[in-house]
């Protein structure tokens, strides 16, 4: 019997769940009943996010990011998270600043000086991957297979600091990188529309919405609006996530603030710049106190910290509807 030859191996620690363990979790813990999963973000995070979890979030800081759920995770002072940072400019910085995060798998970490300092000081540990390889890892996790072969990372230092393994592919006899499946403990995803059971619809580019939801043990969806289930049955092609992947549904208008959500509101550039100009721990703590710890909920955040006139301006700026309705 020929053996598969291992040619190279990255040295990163990986979060890995054997496929059978994940399948059994899905069998026993993912609910196939049509159960009303609507709850507020406080209850959702309390029930489904735990200290030490591997957390994934989909899409970017500036467009359809799950910001209200990230703020709730910070508010509940969840600790020792390991996060997947793909298109992250704000979430990772806030989570690290609030002391929620120990480890980060990096696709693209919009570092900026604040979090760069955290990495340089060793306050957070990073593992370097790439946007493509972490996405393929989620694809494998979603497919229920242990790994997926791909032809990126090969030869680079990125590979050496990732957790990928290079083998000689028995079909082409070429080296190929094996990306271990990623099954996060919990995922938070913001969408335009969801029903109370968790069927969810995303308009616009999706990044890895379905893959992230399928691959994750627990999934919290926040939605700009809650719609009737018949909306999904009328346009089944448009369903992005089916209900049985989802554990909680949170109604969160402006859930992506200070980013935007297509078809609803644009990003708030001023607030975004306020966040990205944070340099010191003192500035970070004062931001967290002002905008997160001092309020009890997303509703209170919008009401007391942002205000209706600002929100109205952001709605007014969002005039492109093509493709989003």
């Amino acid at each position: 019997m020929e053996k598969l030859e291992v040619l190279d191996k990255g040295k990163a620690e990986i979060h890995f769940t054997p496929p059978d363990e994940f399948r059994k979790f899905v069998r026993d813990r993912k609910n196939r009943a049509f159960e009303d999963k609507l709850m507020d973000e406080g209850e959702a995070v309390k029930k489904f996010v735990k200290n030490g979890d591997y957390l994934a979030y989909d899409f970017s800081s500036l467009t359809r990011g799950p910001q209200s759920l990230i703020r709730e995770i910070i508010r509940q002072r969840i600790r020792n998270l390991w996060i997947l940072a793909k298109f992250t400019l704000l979430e990772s910085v806030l989570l690290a600043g609030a002391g929620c995060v120990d480890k980060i798998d990096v696709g693209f970490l919009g570092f900026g000086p604040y979090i760069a300092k955290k990495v340089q000081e060793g306050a957070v540990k990073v593992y370097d991957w790439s946007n493509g390889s972490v996405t393929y890892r989620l694809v494998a996790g979603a497919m229920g297979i242990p790994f997926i072969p791909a032809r990126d990372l090969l030869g680079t230092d990125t590979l050496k600091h990732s957790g990928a393994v290079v083998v000689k592919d028995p079909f082409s006899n070429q080296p190929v990188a094996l990306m271990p499946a990623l099954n996060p403990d919990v995922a938070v995803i913001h969408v335009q529309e969801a029903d109370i059971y968790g069927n969810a619809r995303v308009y616009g580019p999706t990044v890895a919405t379905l893959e992230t939801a399928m691959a994750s043990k627990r999934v919290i969806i926040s939605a700009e609006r809650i719609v009737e289930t018949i909306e999904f049955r009328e346009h089944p092609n448009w369903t992005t996530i089916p209900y049985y992947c989802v554990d909680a549904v949170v109604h969160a208008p402006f859930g992506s603030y200070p980013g935007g959500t297509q078809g609803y509101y644009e990003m708030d550039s001023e607030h975004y710049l306020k966040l990205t100009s944070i340099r010191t721990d003192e500035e970070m703590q004062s931001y967290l106190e002002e905008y997160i710890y001092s309020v009890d909920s997303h509703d209170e955040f919008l009401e007391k910290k942002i205000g209706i006139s600002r929100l109205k301006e952001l709605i007014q700026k969002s005039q492109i509807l093509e493709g989003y309705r």
Partner: protein
Amino acid sequence: MEIEFTDTEFMICNAARLLEDNRTIFVGWGIPQVVAILAEKLYAPNIVQVFEFGAIGPLSRTPFLRGTMGGPSNTYRSLQWCSMNLAFSYAQAGYIDYGMLGAAQIDRYGNINSTMIGDDYEKPKVRFPGSGGGNEVASYCWKTIIVMAHEKRRFVERCDFITSPGHVIDGKTREELGLPAETGPYRVITSMGMFGFDEKTGELKLLGVMKGFTVEEVLEEMAIEPLVAEKVVELEPPTELELKTLREDIDPYGLIISKGRKIKMEV
């Protein structure tokens, strides 16, 4: 007549002139996308942008805005909105002609660094955002174009950290490493010149210098000595139309094009 432009404008215009029409190009936010939009407006009307966010062939609206790669204005009227998995798989399967990337460091074989500076990975002197989709772009696209400021310290014998692959890494060729055949860095556009790569050895080769500079002046600003083409061409500064298009249409707020040193030139 005297014209004034930034070295960013110089790089953008020279990169845009390289692109052939009726091709697909993988771009990220910033300089790469401005290059693609300028090319679309002046030289290659049917060039098709591909975003890792999952947008194929958007007719991106101008002016170019901050931080909106996946937003409505930038992904306007795409041919397809899809997943990142699919966007990268199009490239892995060979559908994407050009890739365009920036870099903090580049080495003799076109390997690029966008991860960290220093000799201790655990304690970097400077930490950058990491690969993003850069590794996939450099691994999969048929021709990768790198656009970067020309500074001595950025040209090194071997990158402190090879984020994305060039033609040879530590003695092994792309094909030996398992990367897709006949791909790799095609051109490097800097604020002083343009490089290609030797067909046999994969080494960096100076092909052109900005009008007004000598070959020696360009080489002086590099910590390594590249190959030099037999006939080094002169790279034209931005034209009036290019500058007008960049400044009035694409980037009137100067988010991208105002950066870098200002150059005055008699033309």
